[in-house]
C-alpha cells in the first residue's frame, strides 16, 4: 500500500512517534486506575456495605460516552493529553475495582483462616496471601482495561488532535487517504493485542502455581 507509513506533516509526529504517544496516553491512565483501584477495592472488601454504592457509581461513570467526558474536561484541562487521560483512568478504575474485589473475595476462607492461625497480621495477610491469590482476577481486569483504554485513545482526535494514532483518521478523511485510516485501526488493534499478550505472560510469571492452560476464554 502506497504511503501506508508516509504520514502528512501536520500530524507533527512520525509513525513511531504516534505509537509512543498512543501508548503513553493509553497506559498511564490504566496505571493510575490501578493505583486508585487497589485501596478502593480493599475498602470495599473490608466494609461490605461500601461495595454496592461504589458499583452503582462506577456503572454510571462507565456509561458516560468518552467524547462527552472529553468535552466537559476541556473546561478544566484544555485540549490536552490530560483531558484524554482522565476519563480513560476513570474507565480503568471502573473495570478494575470489581475485578479486584471479586478476586480478593474469591480467596478461600480456609486459606485466610490458616493464615490467621499462623499469625499473619492483616497487612501481611493482604500482601502475602490475598493479593497473590487474587492476581489472576486482577490481571484479567487489567487486560480488559488496557485493551479498552488503548482503543479509546483514538476518540481524543476530536478534541484538538489529542488522539495519537487516532489523529491519522482525521488526515485520512481530509486528504482522502483511506490507507491512513486502515493504518490507524490496525496499529491500534495490534497494540491492544500485544499489550494483552504481555499481560498474559506477566500472569504466567506471577502465578507459577496456576495450571498453565485452563482453556478459559478470559
Amino acid at each position, binding site marked *: 500500500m502506497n504511503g501506508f507509513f508516509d504520514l502528512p506533516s501536520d500530524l507533527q509526529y512520525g509513525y513511531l512517534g504516534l505509537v509512543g504517544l498512543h501508548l503513553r496516553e493509553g497506559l498511564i491512565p490504566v496505571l493510575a486506575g490501578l493505583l486508585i483501584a487497589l485501596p478502593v477495592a480493599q475498602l470495599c472488601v473490608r466494609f461490605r456495605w461500601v461495595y454496592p454504592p461504589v458499583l452503582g457509581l462506577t456503572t454510571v461513570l462507565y456509561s458516560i460516552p468518552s467524547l462527552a467526558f472529553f468535552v466537559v474536561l476541556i473546561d478544566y484541562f484544555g485540549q490536552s493529553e490530560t483531558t484524554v487521560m482522565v476519563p480513560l483512568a476513570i474507565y480503568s478504575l471502573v473495570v478494575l475495582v470489581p475485578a479486584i474485589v471479586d478476586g480478593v473475595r474469591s480467596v478461600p476462607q480456609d486459606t485466610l483462616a490458616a493464615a490467621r492461625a499462623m499469625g499473619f497480621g492483616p497487612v501481611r495477610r493482604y500482601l502475602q496471601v490475598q493479593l497473590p491469590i487474587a492476581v489472576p482476577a486482577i490481571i484479567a481486569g487489567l487486560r480488559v482495561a488496557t485493551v479498552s483504554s488503548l482503543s479509546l485513545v483514538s476518540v481524543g482526535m476530536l478534541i484538538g488532535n489529542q488522539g495519537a494514532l487516532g489523529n491519522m483518521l482525521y488526515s485520512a478523511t481530509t486528504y482522502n487517504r483511506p490507507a491512513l485510516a486502515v493504518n490507524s485501526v490496525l496499529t491500534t488493534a495490534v497494540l*491492544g493485542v500485544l499489550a494483552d499478550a504481555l499481560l498474559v505472560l506477566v500472569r504466567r510469571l506471577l502465578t507459577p502455581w496456576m495450571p498453565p492452560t485452563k482453556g478459559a476464554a478470559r
Partner: protein
Amino acid sequence: MNVLHFAQAFFSDGSHWHGRDGIPTRLSEHVKYSLEALLFAAAVGLPVGLVTGHYGRGGNALALIATAGRALPSFGLLVLMFIWIGFGMVPVMIPLVVLAVPPILVTTYEAVRSVDPSPVDAARGMGMPESRVLLQVELPVALPLVLSGLRTAAIQIVSTATIAAYVSLGGLGRYIIDGLYQRDYEKVVGGAGLVAGLALATLVVFWAAARLAVSPGVRRSG
C-alpha cells in the same frame, strides 16, 4: 458545580423538547441504533457462545476473537467504514457490533461452561437430546450470567452509539458533537446526561428481564 448548571440549563430550555433536533427524536434514534446493534451482536454471539460452551471447546479461539474485538478501536472503525462505504447505517453498525460481540460471546461461553456438570450428566443419562440439554438444562442455569454479558454489551453500545453523530447520523451523540463544534457545553452535558440516563434505564430493563426470566430455583441458589 457548573456541570449541573449546564444540565439544568439544557433540560429547562423548551426548544430542546420538540422538533427534528428535539430530545424525543434523538432519544428514539439512539434507542433504535442501540437495539439494532444489540440484536445483531446477540445473533452472532449467543449461538456461537452457547454451542462452544456446550461442547467446552474453542475457548482459546474465542479468547483471541474477543481480544481482537476489544482491541479494534470503535471510533477508528467508524471512520474507516465511513470512508469505504459512505453515508448510512452500515458504517455505524459495524463498530457497534464488533464492540458488543466479545462480551456476549465470552460471557455466554463461560456461563454455559461453568454449569454444574452433574445435572447435565443426569439429563443425558435420562435420554435427553443434546439440543434440549443445552436449551432446557444448561441455558436456564447459565441465564443470569448470559444476561449480564448482554447487559455489558448493551451499556457499551448505548455509550458508544454517540459516535454515529460524527458521520452525520442522529442519536444523542448529535448534542455532544454539535455542542463540541459550537462550544455549547450545555448541549454536551445534556447529551451526556441523557446517554447516562439511557444506560441506567438499560440496567433497569435487564434487572427486570432477569427477574422475569430466571427461575427462582436458580436465582436463590446461585
